[in-house]
C-alpha cells in the first residue's frame, strides 16, 4: 500500500527523475548537452542562493564570490596534488568558513545595507583574483585543471569523467544531493525558523529564535553550496578566471531565482534551465535579446512577483476552486 501511495503522490517527480536519467539518450548535440550540464551546476548555486534569499530573506549578492572561492580552491588544491574528491569538500568548506567570517560583520546590517555590503565583498573577491598574480594567475586565470579523479565502484569498476555523459551524471548526482539536503532542511524546524526570520525578524526573536545565529547558519550553508558548484565548475571546465567570481554571475542567478520562484525548491531549477535555454533559442536576436530580457524581468517582477512557481501555484489553486465549485454544485443539486 505504501508503495502505491508513494507512486500516486510522487509520480510526477519520479517521471522527471526517469527523464533526467534518460536525457543522454535524447540529446545528442554536444553543445546542447553542455548547456544542460551548466544548467545543473547553476541550479546548485541558485539553490544555495535560494536558502539565504528566498527562505531567510537576506539578499546576499556575494554568491558568485563564494562560487569563485570554491572554483579557485579546487583549482589550486588539485594543482597541489590533491584528489578531486578531497579538494571539492575542502573548497566548499573553505567557502563556508569565509562565509562565516564575512557573515559576522555583514549580517549585523539589514535589507539593502546587507545586499550592498555583500556585493562589496563579491567585488573584492574578483579584484583580488585578478591581482594576486602569484596565487591566482591574475586576469589570465588558471588553466589545465584536471578532470574529476576517476572513482572505483564495486561492480562497474573504475569510472572516469572524460565523456560528457559521465560529467552529466556527476552534476546530476550533486544536484539531486543538493535538492535532497535542501528539502530536508527547509522542512525541518530549522527551516521554519529561517522562514520566521524572513517574515518578521523581531517577532521571531521574541518567540525565542536566535535570529542572528539563524541568519549566519543559513548564509554559511548557502555559501557551502555556492563553493561546491564553483568547485565542480572549475574541474569540469578546466580553466577559470576572475570572471568566475563576477557580479554578472550573481545577477544571473538572482534572475533565475526570482523568475523561477523564490522560496520554492523547484523554482531555482526551473529558472536555471528555462532562461539559458530560452536565450539559446533567441540566438538570432544577438545582443537585442538582452534588452528584451531586461524588459521581461521588469514586467515579471511587477506582474508575477513570485515567478513561474507562483504562477503555477495560482493556476493550480484556480483549477482546484473550479472543481470544488462543481462538486459543491452537484452536492447541492443532489441534496
Amino acid at each position, binding site marked *: 500500500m505504501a508503495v502505491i501511495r508513494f507512486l500516486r503522490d510522487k509520480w510526477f517527480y519520479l517521471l522527471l527523475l526517469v527523464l533526467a536519467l534518460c536525457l543522454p539518450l535524447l540529446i545528442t548535440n554536444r553543445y546542447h548537452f553542455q548547456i544542460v550540464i551548466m544548467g545543473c551546476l547553476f541550479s546548485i548555486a541558485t539553490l544555495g542562493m535560494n536558502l539565504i*534569499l528566498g527562505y531567510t530573506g537576506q*539578499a546576499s549578492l556575494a554568491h558568485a564570490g563564494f562560487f569563485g572561492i570554491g572554483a579557485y580552491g579546487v583549482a589550486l588544491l588539485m594543482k597541489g596534488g590533491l584528489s578531486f574528491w578531497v579538494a571539492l569538500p575542502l573548497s566548499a568548506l573553505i567557502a563556508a568558513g569565509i562565509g562565516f567570517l*564575512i557573515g*559576522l*560583520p*555583514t549580517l*549585523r*546590517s*539589514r*535589507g*539593502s*545595507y546587507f*545586499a*550592498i*555590503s555583500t*556585493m*562589496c*565583498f563579491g*567585488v*573584492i573577491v574578483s*579584484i*583580488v583574483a*585578478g*591581482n594576486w598574480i602569484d596565487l591566482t594567475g591574475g586576469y589570465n586565470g588558471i588553466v589545465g585543471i584536471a578532470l574529476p579523479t576517476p572513482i572505483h565502484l564495486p561492480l562497474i569498476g573504475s569510472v572516469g569523467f572524460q565523456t560528457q555523459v559521465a560529467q552529466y551524471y556527476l552534476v546530476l548526482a550533486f544536484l539531486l544531493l543538493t535538492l535532497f539536503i535542501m528539502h530536508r532542511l527547509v522542512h525541518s524546524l530549522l527551516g521554519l525558523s529561517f522562514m520566521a526570520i524572513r517574515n518578521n525578524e*523581531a517577532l521571531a526573536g521574541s518567540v525565542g529564535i536566535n535570529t542572528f545565529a539563524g541568519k549566519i547558519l543559513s548564509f554559511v550553508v548557502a555559501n557551502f553550496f555556492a563553493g561546491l558548484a564553483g568547485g565542480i565548475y572549475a574541474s569540469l571546465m578546466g580553466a577559470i578566471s576572475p570572471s568566475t567570481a563576477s*557580479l554578472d554571475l550573481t*545577477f544571473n542567478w*538572482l*534572475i533565475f531565482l*526570482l523568475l523561477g520562484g523564490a522560496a520554492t525548491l523547484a523554482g531555482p531549477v526551473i529558472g536555471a534551465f528555462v532562461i539559458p535555454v530560452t536565450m539559446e533559442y533567441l540566438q538570432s536576436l544577438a*545582443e*537585442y535579446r*538582452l*534588452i528584451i*530580457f*531586461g*524588459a*521581461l*524581468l*521588469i514586467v515579471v*517582477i*511587477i506582474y508575477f*512577483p513570485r515567478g513561474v512557481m507562483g504562477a503555477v501555484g495560482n493556476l493550480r489553486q484556480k483549477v482546484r476552486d473550479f472543481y470544488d465549485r462543481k462538486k459543491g454544485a452537484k452536492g447541492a443539486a443532489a441534496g
Partner: protein
Amino acid sequence: MQLFFQQIFNGVMLGSTYAIVALGLTLVFGILQIPNFAHGHLYMLGAYITFFLMTLYGFGFWSALVTSMVALGLIGMLIERVVYRPLQDRPHINSFISAVGAMIILETSVIVFWGPQGRRIPNPYPDMVELFGITMSHQRLLVIVAAFVLIFLLQIFIKKTTPGTTIEAVAQNREGAMLVGINVNRVSSLTFAISTATAAAAASLVAPIFMISPTMGALLGMKAFVIVILGGVGSIPGAILGGYILGILEAIGGGYLSAAYKDVYAFGALILILSIRPTGLFGKEVS
C-alpha cells in the same frame, strides 16, 4: 610632499564627481526609499549623450552638458514611472530586481547602438597651470568648481524653494506630506529628474578626462551606494562629505599603496564600518 599634494588634488577632483553622484542617489534612495541600482548606468548614458551631441551635432561643451542634463532628467522621470512606481509598496528586493532589469536594458542598448569600445570626448580646456609644483589642468579645476556650484545650487533649491521643501517633507513623513496636500507621486518624479540630471552633469564634466565606455557606470554606481551608506542613507551632508573622503582615500591609496587595489579600499572600508555601525556613519538608528 609634492606627490602628496598632487594626489590630494586628484582626490578632490575625483571626490567632486563622487559627491554629485552620491548626492543624487541619496535623494532617491534615502528620501524616496528606492534603491536605484541603475544610477551608475544613467550616469554612463549622460556621458554618451554629451559625447554624441558634441561630436555628431557640433554642440559646444556647455550646451551639450545642459541638453544632456535635460534629456537624462526626462529619462529619469520615465524610469521612475515605469520601473519603480508599480513596485512602491512591495518589498525592497522587488525594486532591486526591477533595477537590475533597467541596468541590463541601459547597458546593452548602449553596446548595441554605439559599440562596446571606449571613446574620448574632445577636451574643451586642455591648458595646464602649475601651482606650488602641482600640475592642474583647467578641465580638472573646472570639475572641482562646477561640482561646488552644483552642490550649492541644489542645497538652495531644497532648502529655499517650495518644490524643494516638498521633497524634504516627503522624506520626513510620507503620510504627513500627503495629508497636507503634497502630491507624493509628483515629488517622486521631480526627485528622480533632479537625481539623474545631476548624474548627467557629473558624467559630462569628467568625460573629457577619463574614457567613456558602456561599463563605466557599474562600478561608479556601486561606489555611490557605498558613499550613501557610509554617509547615512538620506543624509545630504553625509553624501557630499563621503564623496570627497572616498575620492581622496582612493587617490592617496592608489598613489602610495597599490593602484590595482584602489577599488578594494572603498568596499573594504564599507564592510568594516558596517560591522561597527550597521546603519552607517551618520545613519539614524532604524530597524
